């Protein structure tokens, strides 16, 4: 997104630590979320992403460190006084209230005039195309509909920051895709800072302006989706985001920016770690950056498996040393490759990364 936002960050975490007993859920986290951005915390379960979200919301208090929202220190301010609202994975709609009353709830606790409560709640429901369902009860709606209502309820009060805790986790694939588009569209229109938590890397890549990949209570890499995918800074990032070929290799000569490694009987120039010569390293390469080159000079593999994905073909080759290399190739018609074919494989060297094994 263009950077026309004020310099004030929406959320600022400074040296935040959260311990539960002896378990450290969030470990000295420093994080600045810009105003108006779609920010995602991505990671496997137990990586600390949800705890971080709950710390920002105020459901948990940090063991150490400071949390600032729009420049104001909120570390000691209870959840109900913070200018953030949350969309919960479980939706958490109040079962005893109608849909309209659910959405009007944040306005009712602020004691706004009844007419204004109704009007604004109605407008929020219209925004998520749920205007017709105002007098139903939550139990009468489908999961997707409840999700929309939860979104309207969290947005009706115009929070500075909207927190979303795996909000699409319980939806089926088609609905999920739809809601992803709507979420992104809504975030652009309203200009509210979205802080999104998910374990789904594809969802993170689709939606986010920036992604913080987390592991063990720390941020592994904070980057744009494109950088995170194209230039992972660690083996963990390379493996977590998308599919990656990990090829055992040996360092030949180390140099900043372009080291030389030996793998599969060939030498390659690549970016990455500068381990000493002779060290065992791992070469990472995206499957769509491997090409079948019938006239090439690359290492030869034998096709052992074909997975038909639809838009793509996923081809698994067994190399001379027994390792496997996966190739993703667009399903663009023509004669399909056949099991057993022997084919030289070309690696696009600009996408090769070296990591210490």
């Amino acid at each position: 997104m263009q950077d026309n936002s004020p310099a004030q960050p929406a959320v600022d975490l400074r040296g935040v630590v959260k311990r539960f007993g002896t378990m450290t859920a969030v470990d000295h986290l420093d994080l600045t979320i810009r105003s108006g951005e779609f920010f995602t915390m991505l990671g496997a379960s137990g990586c600390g992403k949800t705890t971080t979200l709950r710390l920002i919301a105020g459901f948990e208090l940090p063991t150490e460190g400071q949390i600032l929202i729009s420049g104001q220190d909120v570390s000691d301010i209870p959840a109900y006084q913070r200018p953030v609202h949350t969309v919960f994975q479980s939706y958490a709609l109040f079962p005893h209230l109608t849909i309209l009353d659910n959405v009007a709830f944040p306005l009712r606790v602020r004691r706004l005039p009844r007419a204004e409560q109704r009007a604004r709640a109605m407008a929020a429901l219209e925004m998520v195309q749920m205007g017709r369902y105002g007098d139903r009860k939550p139990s009468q709606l489908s999961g997707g509909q409840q999700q929309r209502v939860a979104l309207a309820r969290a947005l009706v009060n115009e929070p500075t920051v909207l927190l979303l805790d795996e909000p699409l986790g319980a939806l089926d694939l088609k609905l999920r895709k739809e809601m992803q588009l709507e979420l992104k569209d809504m975030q652009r229109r309203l200009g509210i800072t979205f802080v999104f938590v998910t374990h789904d890397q594809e969802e993170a890549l689709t939606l986010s302006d920036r992604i913080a990949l987390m592991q063990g209570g720390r941020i592994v890499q904070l980057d744009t989706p494109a950088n995170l995918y194209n230039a992972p800074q660690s083996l963990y990032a390379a493996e977590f985001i998308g599919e990656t070929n990990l090829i055992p290799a040996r360092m030949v000569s180390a140099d900043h920016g372009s080291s030389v490694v030996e793998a599969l009987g060939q030498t390659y120039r690549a970016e990455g770690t500068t381990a000493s010569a002779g060290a065992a390293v791992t070469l990472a390469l995206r499957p769509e950056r491997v090409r079948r080159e019938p006239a090439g000079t690359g290492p030869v593999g034998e096709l052992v498996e074909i997975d038909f994905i639809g838009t793509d073909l996923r081809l698994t080759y067994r190399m001379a040393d027994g390792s496997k290399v996966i190739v993703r190739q667009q399903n663009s018609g023509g004669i399909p490759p056949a099991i057993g074919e022997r084919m030289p494989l070309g690696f696009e060297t600009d996408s090769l990364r070296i990591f210490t094994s």
Partner: protein
Amino acid sequence: MTTRTHPGWFTRTFVHGISGWVTLLTYLFMLLPIVVLVAFAFNAGKSTVVWTGFSFDWFVKVWHNRNIVKALHVSLIVAVGSAAIATAIGALAAVAITRREFPGRDLLGAALAAPLVLPEIVLSVALLVFMTFAGITLGYGSMIVGHVLVSIPFATLIIRAAAASLDVRLEDAAADLGANEWQTFRMVTLPQLMPAIATAFILSATLSFDNLVMSTFTSGVGTTTLPLRIYSMLKLGITPEINALGAMMVAANVAILLLVMGRYLPLMLKSNRR
């Protein structure tokens, strides 16, 4: 597929045959006295065992008996008063016990359930001795306190069960949306507990209305409850007037039961399913 064995003669004769009869006899044993009681309320004569004809006279007579009407009045005041207090304390205690961490939490839970296992007679005597010692005149106050003691374990247990099954995340959500603790309690927790609170109130009121032991010890001059009145009437000889009174009490109880089942049971089942 599991092979299905044909039931043997033992199963056929005893389990299927006799169990049906036992069930029927059990129901007869439980319900027949009530049926007889209600039937003889309509007896024209003075006997409660010999049928002499149909009439509504005894019902009319009950309503003209100043003592009975006065006792009904007392019973209703004590029932409603003690049920209200027991339910209020029960609701607050239930929420505190299920939602808060505080020293002595388990002790409080146990203390509130204790009257359940203590013999009521012991509780009653203890209360009477205490009241006498403290110089408290027996009357509505002492009786309401006694009845609260009897019904508070039930009220607390019912509301505790409901409070424990509430979704804590809804309270998180309320706080997240700007509601302070009091607003969260009033607008989210309390409405969801209403079916349980209503059930606890009705059960407490019914327990109080039926109570004889505690009332015997704690009633004062002019605060004779209906069960006490009926008991003293029995000593003077039984007439169908008591049957008529009993029939009306049965009718009232059944009506309340149906009301509770019709109104709150579906609600409770529904809220538990979510």
